[in-house]
């Protein structure tokens, strides 16, 4: 049943899937709500499942439903999808050193499943190791688990959405908050990381009403800028070590 020749690969695949379980819980209500919303709009049920299967991006899918219901043009839906998903460029740039040595089909597949949650879990795994030393099966396992989870809960919403009123009020999305805290807090070991995170968090709160998640993107860029400025004014030990090696 498993890969008998590669037990380590299978273990990494399942480890990635295991570590993303809290995120799967957190995403479940959104999958159901998405499916439910499809049933009340102009799309066929199978359009809703197709969207989850090929787009696999919660925020963009929700916004697209709203735009479609409002008879927006294709160009508007596509442009919105582009803007809402722009933050993913930062994710792939951050993870790029860890996947750049892989065959193209691997990089295309891993890019396809790179959601917020998969980024968080994959990065938490990679950051303890030098680039190139970790196999991609953990990343893939987390991504596939999240992908199948999204399909199942979309289908549940499409078929039984009306049976789950008040799903949003359960607060299952708090699982995402708790997991991200578990990943972020141990990273705040130096003032520059702390200042960057506080800046991004505060601005994301104040700018949350901006359309198309642009407030989130701007808050992240501002937080990163604060971190970079503090790094330049107080070069870190690691940067000095790198400079020493270069000389």
């Amino acid at each position, binding site marked *: 049943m498993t890969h008998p020749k590669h037990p380590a690969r299978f273990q990494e695949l399942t480890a990635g899937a295991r570590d993303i379980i809290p995120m799967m819980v957190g995403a479940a209500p959104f999958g159901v709500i998405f499916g439910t919303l499809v049933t009340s709009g102009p799309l066929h049920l199978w359009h809703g499942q197709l969207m989850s299967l090929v*787009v696999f991006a919660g925020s963009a899918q929700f916004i697209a439903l709203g735009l479609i219901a409002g008879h927006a043009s294709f160009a508007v839906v596509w442009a919105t*999808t582009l803007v809402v998903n722009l933050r993913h460029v930062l*994710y792939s740039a951050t993870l*790029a050193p860890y996947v750049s040595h892989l065959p193209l089909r691997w990089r295309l597949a891993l890019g396809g499943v790179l959601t917020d949650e998969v980024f968080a879990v994959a990065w938490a795994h990679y950051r303890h190791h030098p680039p190139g030393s970790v196999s991609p099966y953990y990343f893939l396992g987390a991504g596939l688990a999240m992908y199948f989870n999204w399909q199942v809960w979309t289908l549940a919403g499409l078929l039984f959405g009306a049976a789950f009123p008040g799903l949003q009020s359960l*607060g299952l999305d708090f699982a995402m908050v*708790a997991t991200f805290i578990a990943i972020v807090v141990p990273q705040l070991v130096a003032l520059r990381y702390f200042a960057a995170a506080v800046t991004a968090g505060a601005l994301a709160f104040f700018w*949350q009403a901006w359309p198309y998640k642009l407030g989130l993107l701007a808050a992240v860029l501002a*937080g990163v800028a604060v971190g970079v400025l503090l790094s330049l004014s107080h070069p870190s030990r690691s940067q000095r070590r790198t400079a020493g090696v270069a000389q």
Partner: protein
Amino acid sequence: MSYVALILGMALITWMIRAAVFVLGDRLVFPPLVRTALGFVPVTVLTALIVPMAVSPHGGGAELTWRNPQLVGALAAVAVSALTRRPLLTIAVGLTVFFVWQGVVLK
């Protein structure tokens, strides 16, 4: 209208955004300043995603009160993570505090 074309277009755009940097692979070498900047992406983006969820769980205004279970659960998780640095314990305590607060304390 062909919704299938619309959906496939969304898929292509999303996938290109996510995979473009990966596709460049080894040909892409970031200058040191960009590498420094990317080092701050995880803590900033994850914080930016959760602060609005914890502080204003219903959208709109801040709910900086003990009657906000998201905020109480998040503060508990932050405390556990800062003290122990253990991810599973952080998630378990955070979720427990959240659900107990929501289901018992505020009932």
